[in-house]
């Protein structure tokens, strides 16, 4: 296929604006998928993706399209994750394209994620092509949506196709517009190979499959490739393109094309998204720009509820990591929780997804500790250390200063909620930057916020204060000096390492108070009274008491019915198993989780 007839594009949208449904319609229209194989939202193939209506992994598919001008075209559609946690992966997917379809919900207009992703696309010099979706809804106002696009983003939108992906209206107009608006790829087929890795996954039989966009040169089966960032070399075994339901081997990929390479690669860590593939025989001199190693932003301890399941948890994490190079984990021990893993995530959504997959796909019962960001601690000795586990926070006497990561956040919401949002951001130590009216009654609030304040329950709190209307997006901004303290929780006088956390000194009292109250609610009464205390450096700042219960007895034991009594005891014993024994105190799993949701 000549480059002139290739179009590489992606679809960007806010969650639930219909990105995946539009992708499905396009697949259907180009007959890429036989109707019988059609499953709703083909490109999102993880259960969690379908349920939550989000895309976690990038996917790509090649489509054949016969245009109105009579010519045959090849489209490479790359479906990108929409969430900020996966921003880097999004940026690499964008770098593989020449154009982006921007889907905007005709009834909702532009949202925080739409903006963030559109700016990202513009940064990558992509041709952004707006499409107004959901015109079938009674509340649809395509005019307004077009106006918003023109006013806020500043790209022409009046001739944007108005479609309903759900009912299939006007989909062909989108494809025709892709041909006229999205430029064809460029790149010298005869130059040394430069191919961008935008995704990879592990296949049990073929090893790691890497998804690439060939920018220059070409590659065929048998070539030895070098991955420039890691320096790893492999001989290619299979090369092809992505069909909608399976991989289609074709033996060669040329500049401008999108496809996959299998080269018996064992570790997904060798194939980093954003890396450049070249050949050993005829290497290029410079890798493609934009590669960076992604580092976790949020850490949390993950422990099996049943200590005996430690090995199962390890196996599950290893399997997940095969497909997710951004998940990191290493063994850790907690006095309270036993053996588990310290896991690093790209963000909160990533963390939630991993936890959910561990529980659902691997049937594990987990206890997770409060997520922590990475603090930078400048010691009096001049050394600087990074702390991702509150337990390891050094003695305050040894700390010269401490810094915490900040994010720059945009919150888009109806103007009615500005007061509520500002109050929330204030509580979370936000610095107000500015506020823009994006239309008469919608605003874009711009704040700097400590990451630490949004990793707990910020999004839930935001939603509850805006009746679900606010959208939120952020990006990391670097470190800022801060008055941080380590807050410890003591049960019956003994410190529970898994409950320690780091907090700004001004909020320590309130947070400590709330924590002990939550714990009191969630720790059942026991045989003996249990004091629940919050402390900073040995000084108690809050205390609650779980009263001892008075009665737990089978008063009647007549007629020789020992069996029934034994069964009752068995049942109680089972109930106890779900508890963690911390010293003399029994703590249910829920108690560990309850402190993660202090806003309720």
């Amino acid at each position, binding site marked *: 296929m000549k480059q002139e007839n290739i179009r590489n594009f992606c679809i960007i949208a806010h969650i639930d604006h219909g990105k995946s449904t539009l992708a499905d319609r396009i697949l259907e229209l180009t007959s890429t998928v036989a109707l019988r194989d059609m499953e709703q939202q083909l490109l999102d193939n993880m259960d969690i993706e379908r349920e939550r209506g989000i895309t976690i992994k990038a996917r790509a598919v090649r489509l054949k399209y016969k245009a109105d001008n009579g010519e045959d075209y090849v489209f490479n559609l790359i479906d990108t994750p929409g969430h900020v946690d996966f921003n880097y992966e999004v940026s690499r997917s964008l770098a593989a394209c020449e154009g982006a379809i921007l889907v905007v919900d005709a009834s909702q207009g532009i949202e925080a994620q739409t903006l963030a992703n559109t700016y990202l696309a513009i940064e990558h010099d992509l041709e952004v092509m707006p499409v107004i979706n959901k015109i079938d809804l009674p509340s649809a106002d395509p005019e307004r949506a077009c106006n918003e696009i023109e006013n806020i983003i500043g790209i022409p939108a009046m001739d944007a196709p108005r479609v309903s992906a759900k009912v299939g209206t006007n989909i062909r107009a989108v494809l025709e517009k892709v041909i006229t608006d999205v430029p064809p790829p460029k790149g010298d087929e005869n130059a040394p190979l430069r191919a961008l890795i935008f995704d990879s996954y592990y296949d049990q039989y073929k090893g790691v499959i890497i998804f690439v966009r060939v920018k220059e040169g070409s590659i065929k089966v048998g070539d030895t490739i070098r991955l420039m960032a890691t320096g790893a070399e492999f001989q290619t075994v299979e090369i092809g393109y992505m069909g909608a339901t399976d991989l289609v081997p074709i033996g060669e990929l040329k500049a401008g094309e999108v496809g996959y390479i299998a080269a018996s690669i064992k570790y997904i860590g060798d194939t980093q998204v954003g890396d450049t593939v070249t050949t050993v025989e005829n290497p290029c001199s410079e890798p493609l720009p934009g590669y960076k190693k992604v580092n976790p932003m949020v850490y949390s301890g993950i422990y099996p509820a049943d200590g005996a399941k430690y090995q199962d948890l390890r196996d599950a994490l290893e399997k997940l990591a095969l497909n997710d190079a951004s998940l990191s984990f290493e063994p850790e021990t907690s006095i309270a929780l036993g053996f588990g893993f310290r896991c690093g995530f790209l963000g909160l959504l990533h963390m939630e997804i991993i936890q959910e997959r561990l529980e659902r796909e691997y049937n594990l019962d987990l206890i997770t500790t409060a997520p922590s960001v990475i603090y930078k601690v400048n010691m009096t000795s001049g050394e600087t250390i990074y702390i991702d586990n509150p337990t390891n926070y050094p003695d305050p006497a040894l700390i010269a200063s401490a810094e915490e990561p900040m994010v720059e956040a945009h919150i888009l919401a109806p103007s009615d909620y500005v007061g509520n949002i500002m109050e929330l951001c204030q509580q979370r130590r936000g610095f107000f930057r500015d506020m823009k009216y994006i239309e008469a009654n919608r605003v874009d609030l711009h704040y700097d916020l400590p990451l630490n304040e949004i990793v707990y329950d910020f999004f839930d709190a935001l939603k509850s204060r805006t009746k679900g209307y606010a959208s939120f997006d952020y990006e990391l901004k670097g470190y800022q000096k801060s008055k941080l303290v380590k807050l410890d929780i003591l049960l019956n006088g003994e410190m529970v390492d898994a409950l320690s956390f780091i907090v700004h000194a001004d909020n320590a009292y309130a947070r400590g108070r709330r924590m002990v109250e939550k714990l009191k609610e969630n720790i059942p009464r026991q045989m003996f009274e249990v004091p629940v205390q919050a402390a900073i450096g040995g000084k108690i700042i809050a205390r609650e008491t779980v009263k001892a*219960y*008075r009665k737990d007895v089978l008063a009647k034991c*007549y*007629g*020789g019915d020992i069996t029934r009594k034994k069964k009752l005891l068995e049942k109680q014993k089972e109930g106890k198993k779900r508890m963690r024994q911390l010293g003399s105190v029994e703590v249910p799993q829920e108690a560990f989780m309850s402190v993660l949701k202090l806003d309720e």
Partner: protein
Amino acid sequence: MTMKNNLGIYIHIPFCVRKCPYCDFYSCISDSSVKSKYVKSLIEDISSYKDRRLSADSVYFGGGTPTSLTSAQLCGILDAVKESFSLSDDCEITTEANPCTVDFMYLCELRQAGFNRISFGVQSAVDSELVSLGRLHSYEQAENAVLQAQKAGFDNISCDLMIGVLGQTEDTLANSVDKLCSLPITHISAYMLKIEDGTPYDCERIRNSIVTDDTQAEFYLSAVKRLSENGFMQYEISNFCKDGRMSRHNMKYWKLCDYIGFGPSAHSFFEGRRFYNERDINGYISDRSSVFRIEDSSSDAFCEYTMLSLRLSEGISRDRYVSLGGSQKKFDSLSKKLVQEGMAKSNDDRLCLTPKGFLLSNSIILGLL
């Protein structure tokens, strides 16, 4: 004849004049033809042990309401027991009785036949509380029944008392305790009302109106104290007696002695096995031999010893606990804590729960298992 196995024999009489709304023991309201068929089956069942030449030193008729049978029927069953088992001279022979199902003649006939202990379901000395429990008798009737029993020659009489009855206060409870203690009785079973699944009491309305666990615990402690002031010493969580006259029969359950139960829902612990009969009177009458006995395979001496010995005031023996496989460390650390908190007393080998400890005995047992 082997005399060594002093068994307890339990006979279940699953009939009541009316079912009390809190009770979950197996019973039904049946006509006289069912009753006589049942008595016949029971006698057959008991007689099947004849050739085994077993000896017993306690017989206990429980229910239901044993006295909803005629005295002749009860005496007939007891005769069958006497024919099939060798009863010791001092054999304790008890029947439970509802105060409004017995009169002087009835009681005399029982006494004549060999019954020497009677246990009345009195429950409370306050009539309004008796109504709320769905009892058919007034306190006066109960008191009268006790006096008649004494007159008929019973010198070992027990009464049941309930703690935590709807409408009960600390004062009315104290009043009930005092009144019962002034009767010519030797034994009181005082147990806390528990709402059993599936009984008419198992409903939102009742659950919301009964006293909280904390209050029930207070009531229990004050009742135990008052009983002891009246000369009734506690020997089990819910049992109190004068002059050392414990219920020999019930002690067999708590001390892991052998017993054989007859009738539907009756439990047995015999020759190292635990088994029990289906809760099905028709099955018992028509087809006793087949699948009627259910084995409890989970029998476990360690668990049973720990669980049962802690019910008794004499407590648990550390040596026996350890020899059955218990952890010495666990025992010692829990004992220490319990003694500190006033939940137990410890002397040499034995750990004995106090009333405060009895109230938490499930947790304590779990702590030792």
